[in-house]
Protein backbone atom coordinates (compact mmCIF):
# COMPACT_ATOMS: atom_id res chain seq x y z
CA UNK A 1 0.00 0.00 0.00
CA UNK A 2 2.94 2.33 0.57
CA UNK A 3 4.07 2.09 -3.05
CA UNK A 4 5.10 5.33 -4.73
CA UNK A 5 6.24 6.16 -8.24
CA UNK A 6 8.17 9.08 -9.61
CA UNK A 7 6.35 11.49 -11.89
CA UNK A 8 6.92 14.81 -13.62
CA UNK A 9 4.61 17.79 -13.22
CA UNK A 10 3.32 19.01 -16.57
CA UNK A 11 0.51 21.37 -15.46
CA UNK A 12 -0.44 23.11 -12.19
CA UNK A 13 -3.62 24.77 -10.95
CA UNK A 14 -3.30 25.51 -7.22
CA UNK A 15 -3.03 22.22 -5.32
CA UNK A 16 -4.12 20.30 -8.41
CA UNK A 17 -1.56 19.22 -10.94
CA UNK A 18 -1.27 17.01 -13.98
CA UNK A 19 1.69 14.68 -13.85
CA UNK A 20 3.31 12.36 -16.33
CA UNK A 21 4.13 8.85 -15.16
CA UNK A 22 5.98 6.70 -17.67
CA UNK A 23 4.27 8.39 -20.60
CA UNK A 24 0.80 8.45 -19.03
CA UNK A 25 -0.77 11.59 -17.60
CA UNK A 26 -2.99 11.74 -14.56
CA UNK A 27 -4.14 14.24 -11.98
CA UNK A 28 -2.28 14.65 -8.71
CA UNK A 29 -2.37 16.77 -5.61
CA UNK A 30 0.74 18.82 -4.80
CA UNK A 31 -0.36 20.34 -1.47
CA UNK A 32 2.40 18.55 0.48
CA UNK A 33 5.40 19.89 -1.44
CA UNK A 34 7.02 23.31 -1.44
CA UNK A 35 6.74 25.55 -4.51
CA UNK A 36 5.70 22.94 -7.04
CA UNK A 37 6.57 23.94 -10.60
CA UNK A 38 6.11 22.57 -14.07
CA UNK A 39 9.02 20.25 -14.86
CA UNK A 40 9.57 19.20 -11.22
CA UNK A 41 10.00 15.50 -10.51
CA UNK A 42 7.93 14.25 -7.58
CA UNK A 43 7.37 11.01 -5.70
CA UNK A 44 3.68 10.17 -6.03
CA UNK A 45 1.66 8.09 -3.56
CA UNK A 46 -2.12 7.56 -3.81
CA UNK A 47 -2.49 10.61 -6.00
CA UNK A 48 -0.44 12.91 -3.77
CA UNK A 49 3.09 14.17 -4.35
CA UNK A 50 4.91 13.47 -1.08
CA UNK A 51 8.40 14.64 -2.01
CA UNK A 52 10.23 16.52 -4.74
CA UNK A 53 12.93 14.62 -6.56
CA UNK A 54 15.92 16.35 -8.07
CA UNK A 55 17.20 15.40 -11.52
CA UNK A 56 20.07 13.69 -9.62
CA UNK A 57 17.55 11.58 -7.65
CA UNK A 58 15.95 10.44 -10.88
CA UNK A 59 19.39 9.73 -12.32
CA UNK A 60 20.34 7.72 -9.22
CA UNK A 61 17.11 5.73 -9.46
CA UNK A 62 17.76 4.97 -13.12
CA UNK A 63 21.37 3.97 -12.31
CA UNK A 64 20.21 1.60 -9.57
CA UNK A 65 17.74 0.01 -11.93
CA UNK A 66 20.46 -0.43 -14.57
CA UNK A 67 22.80 -2.04 -12.01
CA UNK A 68 20.13 -4.44 -10.83
CA UNK A 69 19.34 -5.42 -14.42
CA UNK A 70 23.06 -5.96 -15.10
CA UNK A 71 23.46 -8.04 -11.92
CA UNK A 72 20.42 -10.10 -12.88
CA UNK A 73 21.86 -10.62 -16.36
CA UNK A 74 25.21 -11.70 -14.84
CA UNK A 75 23.42 -14.20 -12.58
CA UNK A 76 21.59 -15.53 -15.63
CA UNK A 77 24.87 -15.96 -17.50
CA UNK A 78 26.42 -17.79 -14.52
CA UNK A 79 23.45 -20.13 -14.29
CA UNK A 80 23.77 -20.96 -17.98
CA UNK A 81 27.53 -21.66 -17.77
Amino acid at each position, binding site marked *: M*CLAVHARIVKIDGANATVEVRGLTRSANV*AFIDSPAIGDFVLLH*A*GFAIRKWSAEDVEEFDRIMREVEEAAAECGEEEKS
Partner: protein
Amino acid sequence: MSFSSSLLSLSRLTHEAGRPVKIMEICGTHTMAAFRSGLRSLMPKGLSLLSGPGCPVCVTHDGYVDQSIALAHRPDVTVTTFGDMLRVPGSEKSLEQARAEGANVRVVYSPLDALQMAREQPQRKIVFLGVGFETTAPAIGWTILQAAQEKLPNYFVLCAHKTIPNAMEALLSSGEVKVDGFLCPGHVSAIIGSNVYEFIPRKHGVPCVVAGFEPADMAASMEMILRQLVEKCPRVEIQYQRAVTPEGNPKAQETLKRAFVECDSEWRGLGMIPASGLAIAPKYAAHDAAPLLAGLPLPAAKRHTGCRCGEVLRGAVTPPECPLFRKRCTPSTPIGACMVSSEGTCAAYYKYATLKP
Protein backbone atom coordinates in the same frame (compact mmCIF):
# COMPACT_ATOMS: atom_id res chain seq x y z
CA MET B 1 28.49 1.59 -3.76
CA SER B 2 27.14 -0.73 -6.46
CA PHE B 3 24.69 -3.58 -5.96
CA SER B 4 27.36 -6.22 -6.59
CA SER B 5 29.83 -4.73 -4.12
CA SER B 6 27.05 -4.39 -1.51
CA LEU B 7 26.38 -8.11 -1.85
CA LEU B 8 30.06 -8.89 -1.33
CA SER B 9 30.15 -6.61 1.72
CA LEU B 10 27.14 -8.42 3.19
CA SER B 11 29.11 -11.67 3.21
CA ARG B 12 32.19 -10.10 4.75
CA LEU B 13 30.31 -8.12 7.40
CA THR B 14 28.08 -11.07 8.36
CA HIS B 15 31.25 -13.07 8.93
CA GLU B 16 32.74 -10.21 10.98
CA ALA B 17 29.56 -9.99 13.08
CA GLY B 18 30.44 -13.51 14.26
CA ARG B 19 26.87 -14.65 14.88
CA PRO B 20 23.60 -15.09 12.99
CA VAL B 21 22.02 -11.72 12.22
CA LYS B 22 18.27 -11.23 11.86
CA ILE B 23 17.09 -8.03 10.21
CA MET B 24 13.41 -7.17 10.24
CA GLU B 25 11.91 -5.37 7.30
CA ILE B 26 8.96 -3.47 8.68
CA CYS B 27 7.32 -2.58 5.40
CA GLY B 28 5.30 -5.01 3.29
CA THR B 29 6.64 -3.39 0.14
CA HIS B 30 10.15 -4.34 1.30
CA THR B 31 8.95 -7.89 1.96
CA MET B 32 7.66 -8.30 -1.57
CA ALA B 33 10.65 -6.50 -3.13
CA ALA B 34 13.13 -8.80 -1.35
CA PHE B 35 11.34 -11.89 -2.60
CA ARG B 36 10.55 -10.69 -6.09
CA SER B 37 14.07 -9.48 -6.82
CA GLY B 38 15.67 -12.67 -5.53
CA LEU B 39 17.61 -10.66 -2.93
CA ARG B 40 16.85 -13.24 -0.24
CA SER B 41 18.47 -15.94 -2.32
CA LEU B 42 21.61 -13.81 -2.72
CA MET B 43 22.07 -13.18 1.01
CA PRO B 44 24.95 -14.93 2.78
CA LYS B 45 24.47 -17.74 5.27
CA GLY B 46 23.97 -16.27 8.73
CA LEU B 47 22.06 -13.23 7.53
CA SER B 48 18.28 -13.45 7.40
CA LEU B 49 15.33 -11.18 6.81
CA LEU B 50 12.28 -11.32 9.07
CA SER B 51 9.02 -9.81 7.93
CA GLY B 52 7.35 -7.39 10.31
CA PRO B 53 3.91 -5.88 10.75
CA GLY B 54 4.18 -3.30 7.97
CA CYS B 55 1.44 -4.43 5.63
CA PRO B 56 -1.46 -2.16 6.63
CA VAL B 57 -4.06 -4.46 5.14
CA CYS B 58 -2.66 -7.43 7.06
CA VAL B 59 -2.78 -5.73 10.45
CA THR B 60 -6.30 -4.41 9.97
CA HIS B 61 -8.63 -6.16 12.38
CA ASP B 62 -11.47 -8.46 11.22
CA GLY B 63 -13.96 -6.22 12.98
CA TYR B 64 -13.05 -3.30 10.73
CA VAL B 65 -13.81 -5.38 7.62
CA ASP B 66 -17.15 -6.37 9.19
CA GLN B 67 -17.96 -2.69 9.76
CA SER B 68 -17.03 -1.81 6.18
CA ILE B 69 -19.32 -4.55 4.86
CA ALA B 70 -22.17 -3.43 7.10
CA LEU B 71 -21.83 0.12 5.76
CA ALA B 72 -21.67 -1.09 2.16
CA HIS B 73 -25.02 -2.85 2.65
CA ARG B 74 -26.72 0.41 3.64
CA PRO B 75 -28.79 1.46 0.62
CA ASP B 76 -27.66 5.08 0.89
CA VAL B 77 -23.90 4.33 1.18
CA THR B 78 -21.13 3.69 -1.35
CA VAL B 79 -17.97 2.32 0.24
CA THR B 80 -14.79 3.32 -1.59
CA THR B 81 -11.45 1.67 -0.94
CA PHE B 82 -7.97 0.95 -2.18
CA GLY B 83 -8.00 -2.37 -4.03
CA ASP B 84 -5.79 -4.03 -1.39
CA MET B 85 -8.69 -4.21 1.07
CA LEU B 86 -11.14 -5.96 -1.22
CA ARG B 87 -10.27 -9.58 -0.44
CA VAL B 88 -9.30 -9.24 3.22
CA PRO B 89 -11.41 -11.70 5.21
CA GLY B 90 -13.74 -10.36 7.86
CA SER B 91 -15.48 -12.58 10.39
CA GLU B 92 -17.78 -14.07 7.76
CA LYS B 93 -16.80 -12.67 4.38
CA SER B 94 -14.71 -10.14 2.49
CA LEU B 95 -15.75 -6.88 0.85
CA GLU B 96 -15.38 -8.64 -2.50
CA GLN B 97 -17.87 -11.33 -1.48
CA ALA B 98 -20.20 -8.68 -0.06
CA ARG B 99 -20.01 -6.78 -3.35
CA ALA B 100 -20.97 -9.93 -5.24
CA GLU B 101 -24.04 -10.09 -2.98
CA GLY B 102 -25.04 -6.57 -3.89
CA ALA B 103 -23.16 -4.36 -1.43
CA ASN B 104 -22.01 -1.08 -2.97
CA VAL B 105 -18.20 -1.18 -2.98
CA ARG B 106 -16.00 0.78 -5.40
CA VAL B 107 -12.23 0.53 -5.77
CA VAL B 108 -10.45 3.85 -6.23
CA TYR B 109 -6.84 4.81 -6.88
CA SER B 110 -6.85 7.81 -4.56
CA PRO B 111 -9.04 9.27 -1.83
CA LEU B 112 -9.31 12.23 -4.23
CA ASP B 113 -11.48 9.96 -6.43
CA ALA B 114 -13.77 9.29 -3.47
CA LEU B 115 -13.99 13.01 -2.72
CA GLN B 116 -14.95 13.65 -6.34
CA MET B 117 -17.68 11.00 -6.10
CA ALA B 118 -19.06 12.83 -3.05
CA ARG B 119 -19.20 16.06 -5.10
CA GLU B 120 -20.92 14.34 -8.03
CA GLN B 121 -23.38 12.25 -6.01
CA PRO B 122 -24.73 14.52 -3.25
CA GLN B 123 -27.67 12.15 -2.66
CA ARG B 124 -25.32 9.33 -1.56
CA LYS B 125 -23.02 8.96 1.42
CA ILE B 126 -19.52 8.23 0.15
CA VAL B 127 -17.41 6.38 2.73
CA PHE B 128 -13.68 6.00 2.16
CA LEU B 129 -11.91 3.21 4.07
CA GLY B 130 -9.11 4.97 5.95
CA VAL B 131 -6.57 2.16 6.16
CA GLY B 132 -2.83 2.66 5.97
CA PHE B 133 0.19 4.02 7.75
CA GLU B 134 1.68 7.50 7.83
CA THR B 135 2.39 7.38 4.08
CA THR B 136 -1.30 7.21 3.24
CA ALA B 137 -2.94 8.97 6.18
CA PRO B 138 -1.99 12.54 5.11
CA ALA B 139 -3.73 12.06 1.75
CA ILE B 140 -6.90 10.93 3.48
CA GLY B 141 -6.53 13.67 6.09
CA TRP B 142 -6.32 16.22 3.28
CA THR B 143 -9.62 15.00 1.82
CA ILE B 144 -11.28 15.33 5.23
CA LEU B 145 -10.07 18.92 5.56
CA GLN B 146 -11.13 19.64 1.98
CA ALA B 147 -14.59 18.14 2.51
CA ALA B 148 -15.00 20.36 5.58
CA GLN B 149 -13.88 23.41 3.63
CA GLU B 150 -16.24 22.66 0.75
CA LYS B 151 -19.03 21.81 3.22
CA LEU B 152 -19.53 18.39 1.63
CA PRO B 153 -21.83 16.66 4.16
CA ASN B 154 -21.79 13.33 2.33
CA TYR B 155 -18.03 12.52 2.50
CA PHE B 156 -16.99 10.20 5.32
CA VAL B 157 -13.93 8.24 6.37
CA LEU B 158 -14.05 5.01 8.38
CA CYS B 159 -10.76 5.55 10.11
CA ALA B 160 -8.35 2.73 11.06
CA HIS B 161 -5.03 4.39 10.36
CA LYS B 162 -2.05 3.05 12.23
CA THR B 163 1.34 4.50 13.03
CA ILE B 164 4.59 2.60 12.87
CA PRO B 165 6.99 3.72 15.66
CA ASN B 166 4.91 2.50 18.61
CA ALA B 167 4.32 -0.84 16.88
CA MET B 168 8.11 -1.24 16.64
CA GLU B 169 8.35 -0.41 20.33
CA ALA B 170 5.66 -3.02 21.13
CA LEU B 171 7.54 -5.66 19.13
CA LEU B 172 10.82 -4.97 20.89
CA SER B 173 9.29 -4.68 24.36
CA SER B 174 7.47 -8.00 24.03
CA GLY B 175 10.83 -9.79 23.80
CA GLU B 176 9.19 -12.51 21.70
CA VAL B 177 11.43 -11.95 18.72
CA LYS B 178 15.11 -11.05 18.76
CA VAL B 179 15.77 -8.44 16.10
CA ASP B 180 19.32 -7.28 15.34
CA GLY B 181 18.33 -4.39 13.11
CA PHE B 182 15.41 -2.72 11.40
CA LEU B 183 14.97 -1.81 7.76
CA CYS B 184 12.67 1.13 8.43
CA PRO B 185 9.91 1.83 5.92
CA GLY B 186 10.94 4.23 3.16
CA HIS B 187 7.73 6.04 2.33
CA VAL B 188 6.35 6.15 5.87
CA SER B 189 9.64 7.81 6.76
CA ALA B 190 9.31 10.25 3.84
CA ILE B 191 6.41 11.67 5.86
CA ILE B 192 7.49 11.23 9.51
CA GLY B 193 11.26 11.58 9.02
CA SER B 194 13.96 9.39 10.50
CA ASN B 195 14.33 11.26 13.81
CA VAL B 196 11.29 9.46 15.23
CA TYR B 197 13.25 6.19 15.35
CA GLU B 198 16.00 7.60 17.59
CA PHE B 199 14.49 5.93 20.68
CA ILE B 200 15.13 2.48 19.20
CA PRO B 201 18.96 2.46 19.20
CA ARG B 202 18.98 4.56 22.37
CA LYS B 203 16.58 2.38 24.38
CA HIS B 204 17.01 -1.04 22.75
CA GLY B 205 20.46 -0.83 21.13
CA VAL B 206 19.00 -1.89 17.77
CA PRO B 207 20.26 -0.26 14.53
CA CYS B 208 17.72 1.40 12.25
CA VAL B 209 18.27 2.20 8.58
CA VAL B 210 15.58 3.80 6.44
CA ALA B 211 15.70 1.81 3.23
CA GLY B 212 14.62 2.40 -0.35
CA PHE B 213 12.65 -0.22 -2.24
CA GLU B 214 14.97 -1.34 -4.99
CA PRO B 215 17.06 -4.43 -4.25
CA ALA B 216 20.23 -2.34 -4.41
CA ASP B 217 18.75 0.04 -1.81
CA MET B 218 17.88 -2.87 0.45
CA ALA B 219 21.29 -4.52 0.09
CA ALA B 220 23.03 -1.21 0.87
CA SER B 221 20.75 -0.73 3.90
CA MET B 222 21.53 -4.19 5.27
CA GLU B 223 25.20 -3.42 4.78
CA MET B 224 24.77 -0.25 6.87
CA ILE B 225 23.04 -2.23 9.64
CA LEU B 226 25.82 -4.85 9.65
CA ARG B 227 28.45 -2.12 9.86
CA GLN B 228 26.70 -0.67 12.89
CA LEU B 229 26.62 -4.12 14.51
CA VAL B 230 30.30 -4.75 13.76
CA GLU B 231 31.23 -1.29 15.08
CA LYS B 232 28.89 -1.83 18.07
CA CYS B 233 27.46 1.62 17.43
CA PRO B 234 23.69 1.36 16.87
CA ARG B 235 22.12 4.50 15.40
CA VAL B 236 19.56 5.75 12.90
CA GLU B 237 20.77 6.21 9.33
CA ILE B 238 19.04 7.04 6.08
CA GLN B 239 19.97 5.01 3.03
CA TYR B 240 16.91 6.21 1.07
CA GLN B 241 18.09 9.80 0.77
CA ARG B 242 16.13 10.31 -2.44
CA ALA B 243 12.95 10.41 -0.38
CA VAL B 244 13.72 10.78 3.30
CA THR B 245 15.11 13.48 5.56
CA PRO B 246 15.52 13.43 9.35
CA GLU B 247 12.59 15.83 9.71
CA GLY B 248 10.21 14.31 7.14
CA ASN B 249 7.54 16.23 5.26
CA PRO B 250 6.30 19.13 7.44
CA LYS B 251 3.23 19.90 5.30
CA ALA B 252 2.01 16.30 5.41
CA GLN B 253 2.71 16.18 9.16
CA GLU B 254 0.67 19.36 9.63
CA THR B 255 -2.25 17.76 7.79
CA LEU B 256 -1.99 14.70 10.06
CA LYS B 257 -2.06 16.95 13.14
CA ARG B 258 -5.12 18.88 11.93
CA ALA B 259 -7.22 15.99 10.65
CA PHE B 260 -6.47 13.32 13.26
CA VAL B 261 -5.79 12.69 16.92
CA GLU B 262 -3.66 9.90 18.31
CA CYS B 263 -5.52 6.88 19.71
CA ASP B 264 -4.90 3.33 20.89
CA SER B 265 -5.30 0.84 18.10
CA GLU B 266 -6.01 -2.87 17.72
CA TRP B 267 -3.50 -4.59 15.41
CA ARG B 268 -4.20 -8.02 14.00
CA GLY B 269 -1.55 -10.24 15.55
CA LEU B 270 -0.15 -7.62 17.91
CA GLY B 271 -3.27 -6.76 19.90
CA MET B 272 -4.02 -3.33 21.33
CA ILE B 273 -1.02 -0.99 21.11
CA PRO B 274 -1.23 2.31 22.97
CA ALA B 275 -1.01 5.48 20.86
CA SER B 276 -0.50 3.53 17.63
CA GLY B 277 -3.53 4.71 15.71
CA LEU B 278 -5.19 7.81 14.33
CA ALA B 279 -8.81 8.84 14.90
CA ILE B 280 -10.59 11.70 13.15
CA ALA B 281 -10.15 14.93 15.11
CA PRO B 282 -13.31 16.03 16.98
CA LYS B 283 -13.46 19.19 14.85
CA TYR B 284 -14.11 17.01 11.79
CA ALA B 285 -16.44 14.49 13.47
CA ALA B 286 -19.10 15.27 10.83
CA HIS B 287 -16.93 13.30 8.36
CA ASP B 288 -16.42 10.29 10.65
CA ALA B 289 -18.25 7.25 9.24
CA ALA B 290 -18.39 5.45 12.61
CA PRO B 291 -21.78 6.96 13.62
CA LEU B 292 -23.28 5.59 10.38
CA LEU B 293 -22.80 2.12 11.91
CA ALA B 294 -25.42 2.77 14.60
CA GLY B 295 -28.02 0.02 14.59
CA LEU B 296 -26.36 -2.02 11.86
CA PRO B 297 -25.98 -5.76 12.52
CA LEU B 298 -22.36 -6.90 12.88
CA PRO B 299 -21.26 -10.55 13.02
CA ALA B 300 -19.66 -11.93 16.15
CA ALA B 301 -15.87 -11.99 15.98
CA LYS B 302 -14.62 -15.34 14.71
CA ARG B 303 -11.24 -16.94 15.30
CA HIS B 304 -9.74 -18.83 12.39
CA THR B 305 -8.53 -22.07 13.98
CA GLY B 306 -4.94 -22.82 13.13
CA CYS B 307 -4.19 -19.55 11.30
CA ARG B 308 -0.84 -18.19 12.51
CA CYS B 309 -1.03 -14.80 10.76
CA GLY B 310 -0.58 -13.05 14.09
CA GLU B 311 2.74 -14.76 14.73
CA VAL B 312 3.81 -14.18 11.13
CA LEU B 313 3.12 -10.46 11.59
CA ARG B 314 5.29 -10.42 14.71
CA GLY B 315 8.09 -12.24 12.93
CA ALA B 316 7.74 -15.10 15.43
CA VAL B 317 7.16 -17.76 12.76
CA THR B 318 7.56 -17.97 9.00
CA PRO B 319 4.53 -18.90 6.85
CA PRO B 320 5.65 -22.50 6.16
CA GLU B 321 5.40 -23.10 9.93
CA CYS B 322 1.65 -22.47 9.76
CA PRO B 323 -0.35 -25.73 9.37
CA LEU B 324 -2.75 -24.06 6.94
CA PHE B 325 -0.09 -22.61 4.60
CA ARG B 326 -0.36 -24.01 1.06
CA LYS B 327 -3.04 -26.43 2.26
CA ARG B 328 -6.28 -24.74 3.29
CA CYS B 329 -4.79 -21.26 2.93
CA THR B 330 -3.80 -20.23 -0.60
CA PRO B 331 -4.14 -16.97 -2.56
CA SER B 332 -7.39 -18.23 -4.10
CA THR B 333 -8.76 -19.46 -0.75
CA PRO B 334 -7.06 -17.18 1.79
CA ILE B 335 -7.79 -17.68 5.47
CA GLY B 336 -5.49 -15.05 6.91
CA ALA B 337 -4.94 -11.52 5.69
CA CYS B 338 -1.23 -12.18 5.12
CA MET B 339 -2.19 -14.49 2.24
CA VAL B 340 -4.55 -11.92 0.71
CA SER B 341 -2.53 -8.76 0.42
CA SER B 342 -0.10 -8.35 -2.45
CA GLU B 343 2.36 -7.23 0.24
CA GLY B 344 1.49 -9.99 2.70
CA THR B 345 4.28 -12.24 3.96
CA CYS B 346 2.34 -15.46 3.34
CA ALA B 347 1.48 -14.36 -0.22
CA ALA B 348 5.17 -13.61 -0.84
CA TYR B 349 6.26 -17.01 0.50
CA TYR B 350 3.54 -18.74 -1.51
CA LYS B 351 4.53 -17.03 -4.75
CA TYR B 352 8.29 -17.36 -4.34
CA ALA B 353 8.41 -20.57 -2.29
CA THR B 354 11.19 -22.12 -4.31
CA LEU B 355 13.52 -19.36 -3.14
CA LYS B 356 15.51 -19.42 0.06
CA PRO B 357 13.15 -18.65 3.02
